[in-house]
């Protein structure tokens, strides 16, 4: 089913685990090296930055090859162009299979670019020729993305497949009429919950590391989707559209209280469970959705001005961080404030500093503005200031 060699992926997994054990000082160097020789890598997976470079270049090459194709065939009609796109998509899929099989490319940038390009072109071509409705479009995307997920274990493709599945549920229930449409929020919540539990089950199979990355992203997506299904803002605005309710500004939807309850409770449950079971992913999703609570409440009840919320929120966040830092001076209940994975620490602090320098205003705007708005700068090199 999977295009990459399963043993090779298993070897990678063993190496990762051994490196983790070595990093946590559970494994002597000699044993680690024995594991490395026993589980060799045959894949070509370059460094992240080289991967980005190869990805960009492969996309450029694919795009201009398509351009040459268009020029050569003097493609006159749009349908012909769409056909050409499908042809190139199949060509790219073939090239991808070749690169994986013969050149052992694995997350090298080349395979990522070919896969995304091929999937996108295939969908675009078919969709343009057949001109389907929303539901069929979603089904088409779902099929292409699902195939790509199973064949190439690509994270992004598995995420696209999940979104497309939600689209299928959404448009199908609209087609089925009012009786189904009414239960749309619960349908979405049901499907996301189902996906969540199925994927979690899959994870416990022994060979789960083949699809390790997909199996990490789908639970996160389904937790978010489950919340979106019950969120008051989303339910109210969508039902307003779908049922032509023409709600007045302050008016609520039927069973509004239920969706308010879901909006407020689900993130707390995620966060609580995450803390209780020390699951970092659930904690992060819970925290992110806490922000969604604030935005939802604020959208319907503009009690205080936005700047008051910002200041209060800032104070609460800083105080929480202050309290947690104090509390976790030494590790408690399995939580710690120490940064793990120190190999990435240098890169992380560099990225952090870049984010800081681009989001915090370090230059008082009016000073710069006055200076360069004035004649000082337009003088064409005559002033001696530099």
């Amino acid at each position, binding site marked *: 089913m999977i295009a990459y060699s399963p043993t090779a992926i298993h070897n990678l997994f063993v190496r990762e685990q051994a490196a983790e054990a070595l990093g946590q000082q559970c*494994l002597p160097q000699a044993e680690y090296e024995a594991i490395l020789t026993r589980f060799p890598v045959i894949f070509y997976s370059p460094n992240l930055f080289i991967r980005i470079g190869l990805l960009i270049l492969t996309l450029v090459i694919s795009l201009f090859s398509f351009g040459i194709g268009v020029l050569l065939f003097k493609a006159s009609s749009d349908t012909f162009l769409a056909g050409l796109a499908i042809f190139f998509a199949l060509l790219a899929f073939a090239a991808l299979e070749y690169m994986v099989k013969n050149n052992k490319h694995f997350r090298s940038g080349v395979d990522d670019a070919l896969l995304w390009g091929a999937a996108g072109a295939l969908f675009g071509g078919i969709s343009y020729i057949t001109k389907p409705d929303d539901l069929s479009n979603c089904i088409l995307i779902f099929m292409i993305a699902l195939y790509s997920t199973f064949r190439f274990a690509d994270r992004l493709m598995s995420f696209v497949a999940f979104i497309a599945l939600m689209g299928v549920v959404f448009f199908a229930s609209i087609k089925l009429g009012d009786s189904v449409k009414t239960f749309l929020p619960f349908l979405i919540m049901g499907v996301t919950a189902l996906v969540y539990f199925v994927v*979690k*089950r899959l994870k416990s199979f022994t060979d789960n590391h083949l699809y390790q990355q997909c199996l990490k992203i789908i639970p996160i997506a389904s937790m978010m989707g489950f919340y979106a299904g019950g969120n008051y803002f989303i339910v109210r605005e969508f039902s307003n559209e779908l049922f032509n309710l023409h709600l007045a500004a302050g008016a609520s939807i039927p069973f509004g209280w239920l969706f308010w309850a879901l909006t407020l409770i689900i993130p707390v449950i995620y966060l609580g469970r995450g803390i209780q079971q020390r699951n970092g992913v659930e904690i992060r999703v819970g925290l992110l959705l806490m922000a969604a609570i604030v935005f939802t409440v604020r959208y319907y009840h503009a009690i205080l001005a936005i700047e008051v919320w910002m200041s209060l929120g800032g104070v*609460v*966040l800083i105080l929480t961080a202050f309290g947690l830092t104090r509390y976790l001076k030494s590790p408690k209940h399995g939580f710690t404030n120490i940064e793990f994975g120190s190999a990435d620490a240098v890169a992380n602090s560099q990225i952090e500093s870049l984010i800081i*320098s681009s989001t915090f205003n370090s*230059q008082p705007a009016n000073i710069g503005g006055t*200076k360069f708005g004035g004649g000082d700068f337009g003088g064409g090199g005559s002033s001696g200031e530099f």
Partner: protein
Amino acid sequence: MMRIQINICTTFNPNYNEMNQKLFEQLQQEGLISDASFANIKIKQEHSLLSVHWEIKTFLYLGVLLLSGGFGILVYKNIDTIGHQMILLFIALICGGCFFYCFKNKQAFSIGKVLATNSLFDYILLLACCTFVIFIGYLQFQYEVFGNRYGLASLFPMVVLFFSAYYFDHLGVLSMAIVNLAGWLGITVTPISVLTANDFNNSRIIFTGLALGVLLITMAWATRKRKIKQHFELTYANFGTHILLISCLAAMFHFDAIYLLWFLLLAALVVYFYSKAMADKSFYFILITTLYAYIGISYIVFQLLDKMVGIDITILYLWFLYFIISGIGLIVFLMRTNKKIKAI
């Protein structure tokens, strides 16, 4: 009902991302790891810790961002009722308080790397620096303390930022100081807006960019050579490389009468950065210098093709073919470089 509950319990079982015990059991049976190591791993797993370091950091970052933004709007909206002196006093109090905290809790100064006590310290320093910049800006805007010497009004915060960056050892404040330095010279160097906020058709901007780039690269070089805060080198080099190469490309496009001369400069710079990146084994710098060089070479090829063929349908073919062939060539080049670095 019972069964479903059991299923839910197992599916929620959290510890999958950590070390896989089943796998290590197999490795032990194969004799690849000793019983002692296996016991170690088992103990580690039972007492595994979850790090919330980056969650706390994110809280602090968002907190400081929201607080400074919120205060900014509050002040702006209520300026008539509060009065300028009160606001200035308030900002000064926050700034002074934060700096006081930093001076009290700082580690001893060293020209090497100093690890902060915790991330709280880092962000309080950041808040102190932000409010200081706002304070000076406000003072100048309202009372024109520095009169018409606008350069002085932005030089002063810049000096304080550089001092804080070195004294307390803070990469974020160093980046802010560099952005400030560039702003003092009249260009924007923040990663998001370096291309959009600058008018690279202005020869003045181009020369300033070149000078700033050279200055920053020199700082990077001196930082390593003199062993003063060596970990700052990467920040200087990152800003410096981008601004220098972007300015050089801009010069090539702008002074198109002598673009070959500028291309020679670009080539020299690229060779320098490339060999430096190879020596440092830095994939990041290899990628960016390669891409900047590619843009420069493509420009030359386009100019030549334009002269030789003129505007015609064949030129489209030639352009497309150029991109395909050069793309393949560059892929081979990057793959070889990757191999070379890994072999060093």
